[in-house]
C-alpha cells in the first residue's frame, strides 16, 4: 500500500515543486520594474564610469600643456608585453648641458593588458588610467597612440 501512497506523494511533491519554480518566474513577469538592462548607446550621456576604471593609459597634461614624463623608461622595462616604447632625445637645457627629454611616448593599446604596472612603477606619476572605453577602430594602427601631446614639455617643479 505504501508504494501507492508514495506514488501519489511523489506526484504532489513534484507538482508543488514545479509550482514553486513557476511562482518565482511569475513574480518577475508581473514586476517589469526589476528590469536591469541599460540602454547603452542611448544612455551614453548619463553613463559615468567609476573614477578608477581602467579604460586606457593616458598622460595627464595640465592647463599649459605640461606633463611629468622625464623619459626614464622604467615603465617600458616593467611592461610585461612590451606595449610601451619611449623615444628620447638630447636637448641642451638652460645651462647648456645636454639633457634627456622625452620625444615620443608610444603606447600600443592593442597589446596592453591593463595590468597597471607602468602606472604603479612610474617614479614621477606621469601615467594614469583614463575612463574612455570605446576603443573600436577600423584600422589597427590607430591603436598605437602617442601619449605626450605635441608641443608639450616637462613640468618643472621643485626637486622632491
Amino acid at each position: 500500500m505504501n508504494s501507492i501512497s508514495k506514488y501519489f506523494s511523489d506526484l504532489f511533491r513534484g507538482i508543488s515543486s514545479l509550482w514553486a519554480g513557476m511562482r518565482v518566474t511569475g513574480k518577475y513577469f508581473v514586476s517589469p520594474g526589476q528590469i536591469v538592462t541599460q540602454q547603452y548607446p542611448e544612455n551614453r550621456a548619463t553613463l559615468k564610469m567609476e573614477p578608477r576604471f581602467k579604460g586606457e593609459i593616458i598622460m595627464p597634461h595640465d592647463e599649459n600643456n605640461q606633463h611629468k614624463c622625464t623619459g626614464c623608461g622604467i615603465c617600458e622595462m616593467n611592461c610585461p608585453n612590451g606595449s610601451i616604447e619611449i623615444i628620447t632625445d638630447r636637448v641642451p637645457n638652460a645651462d647648456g648641458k645636454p639633457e634627456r627629454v622625452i620625444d615620443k611616448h608610444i603606447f600600443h593599446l592593442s597589446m596592453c593588458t591593463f595590468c597597471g604596472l607602468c602606472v604603479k612603477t612610474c617614479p614621477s606619476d606621469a601615467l594614469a588610467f583614463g575612463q574612455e572605453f570605446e576603443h573600436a577602430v577600423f584600422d589597427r594602427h590607430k591603436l598605437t597612440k602617442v601619449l605626450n601631446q605635441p608641443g608639450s614639455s616637462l613640468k618643472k617643479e621643485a626637486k622632491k
Partner: protein
Amino acid sequence: MSEEIIKDVIVRENEDYIINMGPQHPSTHGVLRFEVCLKGETVKYLIPHIGYIHRGIEKMSEAITYQQVIHLTDRMDYLSAHINNEAVCMVVEEAMQVEVPERVKYIRTILDELNRIASHQLWWCAFGMDLGALTAFFYGLRDREQILDIFEESFGSRLLHSFNTPGGLMHDVHPNFQKRTKEFITYFRKKLPEYDQLLTGNIIFQERAKGVGYMSREKAIAYGVTGPSGRGSNLACDIRKIAPYGAYDKVQFDEILMTEGDTFARYQVRMAEMWESLKIIEQLIDNIPEGDFTAKMKPIIKLPVGEYFKRVETARGELAVYVVSDGNKSPYRVKFRSPNFSNLFVMNELAAGGKIADLVAISGSLDLVIPDIDR
C-alpha cells in the same frame, strides 16, 4: 594532424558512432573537445582533447619578473582571478620572509570570498542553462553584477583584476567598499532562497541531477579531484581548513561535505558554499584593521635560490604554485597545479554508461574552466 592520428580516428570511426562535442559547443564552456563514442543515446567512452587555448603560461613566466607573472595567472582560471594572483604573491612573500600587514590579509580574504561567490554564481547560471533552465542564467548574472560593480569600483576592472602585488595590494580599497559589500550581503541573502526555489527544489532538476555521475571518494582521491567537486564525494580537501592562509584562521566557517557523490551533491556543496562565503565576509567586513595596504618591497624582487610551494583554495579546487628560483629576477621554473586539469580527466569514468544529457550535466557539475586546464 599527422597521418597517424587521422588513420587512428578513421579506424575508430567506422566501428563506433563517434560525435565530437566541441571545441565550439554550447555546453563545454570553452574550447574543449569531447570525442564521445555513442551507442544510441548512451555514452560508451569519452576522450577529452585539450590544448586549444594553451598559451604556455609556464614558459612565459620564465621570461618575466615576479610582479609581471601576477597578471598572467588571472588569465588562467579567470573566474577566481584574485585567488590565483594571491597564490603567486604569497609564494613570493613567504620566500622573501616578508610579513604582510594585517589589513592586507583581511582585504585579500574578503576579496577571495567575493570572488568565490561570483564564480559560484556564474557556475549556477551555466549549470542551469546546460540543463535547459535558461532563465536561471539571467538571474545569476543579474546578481553577479553587484559583485562586479564592487570590484570595478575598487580595482578598476571587473573580471581580471591585477590588484595584488607581492607584498600587498596595488592601492587601497575604495572608501565605500565596506558599505557596498554589506549592501550586497543583505541583497544576496534575499536572492539565494529564490535560486533554491527555482532550481534546487524543482523535481525535473532533481531527476536530472540525482544519481547522475556518481564519483566515489577513492576515485576522487585517485584522480586528484579537489574543490567542491571532491567535497561532493565526502573528500575533505578544503585548503582554507588544511593550511589556512590570509585571515582564514580568524574566521569561523564550516567545510561543506556531501556523501552522495553525484551531480546533485556537488550542486548542493556549491550552493552551501555561497552561504558560507557570505558568513565569512560578514565576520571580516566590519573589523578590517587600519594600516598601510602594502609592505615595503624593493622594486626588483629576487627570490633566494631554492624551491617554494604554496597551496590555495580557488573556487574550483586546489591551486598549487611550485616555484624554482635561481636567484635572479625571473623564476627559473614555475608549475601551476591547476584544479581543473585533474577535475577534467575524471569525466570519462563518470560519463561512461550515462546518456548525452547526463554528460552535459556532469561536465556542468564539475564546473570546468578550460584556460585553467590548458594554461
